[in-house]
């Protein structure tokens, strides 16, 4: 009985691209505990929508007691969230899940795709290692500038308007990037490619997965991913993204 549902007050909530929003929330109980790669459950103020929205934590300021979420307003729930004004109070649960294991001192590559980019920002701040950041976008660029204080940033875009035309692997090859450890978050096809690239180059690869969730705490078994070995919950090669993840070692999961 260590966790509780907490009221958070929205300090700001503004668009940073055509459909991505940045929300700063005052919620010190979560800020004091959160580590890079964890997420929070947000309960929207709309009685027709029952399930919490799991949203990854983009930045944490334990001193100020704030967390920052950067999310894409794409479904009804996140669109609702994007409409909330400064001062709105929302319920949160968290921090949830297991974040990245910070392998300080080992040369690192942080690879993010689309709305998988935000959780890497706090990681970039906290990771004490020689590091590069590779970000993949479809077209519109967001959040990329904010990484520049912490690492060199390399960009791939599908439309080729910014950085390398193509995906993050194309950018890695183009810029001849190298690392001992990959920390990645993004769409499944990207993670699949990174897994193959990283493991074939003998890197340690940490992937943050996404799946539709219900409870967010590991009870309902909605958000499973296939695993290479028998999992220790149901013993059926299914791990729970919310509880056992969202960050997994690449060799653990079947993508």
């Amino acid at each position: 009985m260590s966790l509780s549902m907490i009221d958070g007050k929205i300090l700001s909530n503004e668009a940073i691209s055509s459909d991505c929003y940045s929300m700063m929330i005052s919620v010190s109980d979560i800020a004091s505990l959160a580590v890079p790669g964890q997420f929070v459950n947000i309960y929207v103020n709309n009685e027709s929508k029952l399930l919490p929205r799991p949203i990854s934590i983009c930045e944490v300021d334990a001193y100020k007691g704030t967390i920052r979420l950067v999310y894409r307003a794409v479904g009804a729930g996140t669109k609702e969230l994007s409409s909330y004004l400064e001062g709105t109070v929302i319920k949160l649960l968290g921090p949830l899940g297991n974040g990245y294991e910070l392998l300080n001192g080992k040369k690192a590559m942080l690879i993010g795709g689309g709305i998988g980019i935000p959780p890497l920002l706090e990681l970039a701040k906290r990771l004490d290692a020689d590091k590069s950041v590779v970000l993949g976008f479809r077209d519109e660029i967001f959040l990329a500038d904010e990484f520049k204080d912490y690492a060199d940033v390399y960009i791939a875009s599908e439309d080729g308007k910014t950085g390398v035309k193509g995906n993050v692997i194309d950018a890695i090859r183009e810029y001849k990037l190298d690392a001992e450890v990959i920390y990645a978050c993004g769409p499944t096809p990207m993670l699949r490619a990174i897994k193959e690239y990283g493991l074939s180059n003998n890197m340690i690869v940490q992937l943050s997965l996404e799946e539709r969730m219900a409870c967010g705490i590991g009870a309902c078994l909605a958000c499973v991913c296939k695993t290479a070995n028998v999992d220790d919950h149901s013993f059926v090669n299914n791990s729970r993204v919310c509880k056992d993840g969202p960050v997994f070692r690449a060799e653990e999961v079947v993508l």
Partner: protein
Amino acid sequence: MNLSVDFCGVSFKNPITVASGTFGSGAEYSEFVDLNKLGAVTTKGVANKPWAGNDTPRVCETYGGMLNAVGLQNPGIDVFIKRDIPFLKQFDTGIIVNVCGHSEEEYIDVVERLSDQDVDILEINVSCPNVKEGGIAFGQKPDALNHITKEIKKHTNKPVVMKLSPNVTDIVEMAKAAEEAGADGLSLINTITGMKIDVDRRNFVLANKTGGLSGPAIHPVAVRMVYQVANSVSIPILGMGGVMNAYDALELMLAGATMVSVGTANFVNPFATVEIIEGIKEYMERNNIDDINSLIGAVK
């Protein structure tokens, strides 16, 4: 004030338990909820062997509800007996074990394994809409339900509660078929089969295409079916379906349920169960009701 109820010959400290599948075996929710406060924990369906469940996505949200097609992923009875029962025995709460299977033999295998275990009641899931073979086949035909109930009763001395599907023309006919076969109690309702289509992507939202609809959206259907069944059979009912708060739980009890399961509400508010128990106490105080048993089936 008395909150304790007798259900199938077992005494529970209060009538509130959880709907199978929404609460695991209690371990995860024990971080939020003092399990000692619950009348019972009803565990996630357990089969004779581990089940991997369905592909993902397994859940989605609907208006005032949700669809799930988890497909009864579970570690099987061996792990359940070794890990989950001992975990729950640390707490002062009842244990209702939900049992699933693909075939008569599989159900019997599980109930036999549980017969010498220190659990209170077996809830037989013959109504999961998300499993291709078995399960639901027993829950939509009175003859099949009657038969499986009889077979299960032959293989266990534990009280047997048959969990009924709402996806039937006549819930009373099903209830009577189970009662005639010797069921000690009934639990209803399981989820209503539904579907969601992603209009923008023009595809099914769930990998399984269909899923079971739960949540407050279906509560009026649960109240109706509990009422109809309570007025047609003499075995007790564990009522469920969209209970979000104490009033929802009380509706099911007034309609005839002896105990009530809280399901989807756990996802909406991890503290739902204990808040509902508190809300029932407040209602009883406000209305000078000394014994919760006086509310069971009080609306005719």
